[in-house]
């Protein structure tokens, strides 16, 4: 009997399977990721934890397709205490409706948590992205409950070291950057099961590398590990 047929037996459970749960969700815009998520997208009415130590590796572009979709509805998209200024032309170039995006500046983590929880609970925010710093398990739970109540898509960004700690958030994803692609590891999801690491091209910037662009500028290299005589020439060329 071929192995495939054996595996089709419903009595056999494979480690990478997860229970399909009917959760309201918004498509992520990445087919590979949608396949791995119960409900086929970012869970709405739940909190998602995104863990990464690097800022700017593509965490926003990962969320962007969903945010763009939500921004054309009537609810708000709230960014609580973003680490930098959101660049309006950048968001617009993604097709995001800026009229729905609201930024909240806070003075402390406590304020950020309060604002994020309030927004999630209000029911008038489609998505709430919060950079809340060190959120304890208790605050995450509060936000999760608020998201359930207000039916909002809540996202909390945290450091990678939190991955080892338990968290009440139903979806937890760890991000690392790898040259062209963004490496995703789902640490926890509804329905359980082990998820294979994903490598997504989130279109972090355009693909045409320096080799092409810099042909008319002498001495600019694709890698910084070139020997220094040429770097010297680079400086001369630029100066």
């Amino acid at each position, binding site marked *: 009997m071929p192995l495939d047929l054996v595996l089709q037996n419903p009595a056999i459970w494979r480690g990478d399977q997860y229970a399909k749960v009917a959760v309201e969700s918004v498509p992520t815009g990445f087919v590979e990721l949608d396949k791995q998520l119960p409900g086929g997208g970012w869970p709405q009415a739940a909190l998602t934890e995104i863990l990464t130590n690097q800022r*700017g590796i593509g965490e*926003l572009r990962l969320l962007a397709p969903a945010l763009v979709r939500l921004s054309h509805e009537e609810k708000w998209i709230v960014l609580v205490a973003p680490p930098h200024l959101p*660049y309006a032309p950048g968001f617009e170039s993604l097709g995001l409706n800026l009229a729905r995006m609201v930024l909240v500046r806070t003075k402390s983590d406590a304020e950020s948590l309060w604002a994020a929880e309030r927004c999630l609970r*209000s029911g*008038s925010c489609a998505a709430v992205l919060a950079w809340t710093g060190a959120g304890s398990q208790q605050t995450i739970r509060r936000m999760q409950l608020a998201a359930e109540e207000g039916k909002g898509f809540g996202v909390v960004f945290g450091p990678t070291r939190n991955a080892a700690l338990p968290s009440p958030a139903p979806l937890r994803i760890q991000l*690392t950057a790898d040259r062209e692609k963004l490496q995703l590891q789902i640490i926890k999801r509804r329905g359980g099961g082990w998820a294979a690491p994903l490598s997504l091209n989130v279109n*972090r910037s355009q693909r045409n590398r*320096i080799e092409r662009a810099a042909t008319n500028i002498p001495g600019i290299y694709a890698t910084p590990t070139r020997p220094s005589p040429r770097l010297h020439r680079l400086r001369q060329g630029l100066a």
Partner: protein
Amino acid sequence: MLWVCMHLSDFSLQLWLQGLRDPGPAVITTGGNRPEVLSCNPPARSHGIAPGMTVSAAVALAPDLIQRPRDLVAEQHALERVAAWAGQFTSRLSLAQPDALLLEIQGSLRLFNGLRSLLLHLSAGLSDLGYTATIATAPTSTGARLLARAGMNSTVTEIARLEPMLAGLPLILLDQPEETTHMLAVMGVHTIGECRALPRDGLARRFGQSLVDELDRALDQLPDPRKPYLPPTRYTARLVLPAPVYETEPLLFATKRLVMELAGFLRMKQAGITKLKLTLHHEDSKPTIVKLGFAVPSRDPQRILTLLRERLSGLELHGFKLPDRVEAITLVSEETRPLGSRNLSLFPEDRLPEEQRWLIIEHLRARLGVDAVYSIASHPDHRPELSWRVCEPGRNDLEGREAASPRRSSSTAAPPDSLSTAAPPCSSSTAPPPRSSSTAPPLWLLETPRRLQILDDAPALDGPLTLLTGPERIESGWWDGNDVGRDYFIAEDTSGTRCWIFREHNSTSWYLQGLFS
């Protein structure tokens, strides 16, 4: 015609204790050198205090007694505010000084689903304001007032039924000088019925025409004109707190009374509030002023109260301390806008009401400050730091659209050729920023460009940076003093973070301006 009279007995006492949740023994006194008790509340009465007693005797009975002389001016103002609040029930109302209000409600019966439901609305509303009143209904205003003064919560709709009811009421309730009622009492005439049984001409000769007229008016035998009440254009209320407070909760309790009044006033005006000012008066220091703005006009008292609560507790959160205990509060409606009622839809709606959507913005603003909650819009400028603007949430679709549309069209159309990107300053307001079609702009911008270290003659950020694309030259702003001449590159650091860096033309220093994320 159908008149409702709301008689607020012991109005001065009610007004004073309005802002207190569980008042202890309290009395209103006559003031002066030897003050006497004018009226007292139930806790005071249970201590054995009665009107007419000297205040020193009352204090001996209840050591924790709080007292205050009667304030006629405040009473008059408060009565007018109750009238403004009651304006939501009828447009024909009149003050019956010092402590009663007359409402002609024949025309409002249908709107409020009949008399019973209207009276329920009235009494529930009054108790929200912190008042208890005797509410009597009669076909004549004088009749309604007599019934209400007698403490009868009765509803009489026909003259024929009113007559026997009035006949049993004492003469003291009439608006007549004390000598008249005293003289009649000496004659053995105590009730209205007995008085009406006397010959009219003799009665008029002895006690003046006004007594006969008042009796006639009560039974609709004479016209009974009333001076109509004209509502003010803005709501201003001052409430003196019985005991100075420091905490938010009792303060909010007192404020709630005024907010309920304000809501009635707004409903009467068919308006919603957009700017509200709450002043907290202290004994020795300058008053604390709390201002509230509403994105969408509202007259929902719960919404106003939630915002006030957020604001007051927000003050505490920021370590702001009230300089002193609050002894009085003033609430002023600074700006109102017409607000019609919304038609209900035939089918259940799942759309979010517009007002609901703004609630969260107001909520956040009340706590974190107005500037802390904002939106951004792009602005047509080549310099990244000037190519966006802060704007009101939800408002940028207006100004943002003209700014955004040329860019969108340019990104879908053929990429602009390199010569046309150097736009002359005069046309810069409509020129799209120089984005070559292949470059997506970054999503994060640093508040101020961060100067990069130079490592081995190349820019570095926690390690060497790899240049990926560039340069994109931006040379702009020579006309407004913010002259920039920069070459932008996209670079990647060792950890994989993509950065937007630039090098100035006239120096060799590199700066980090954005992150791609």
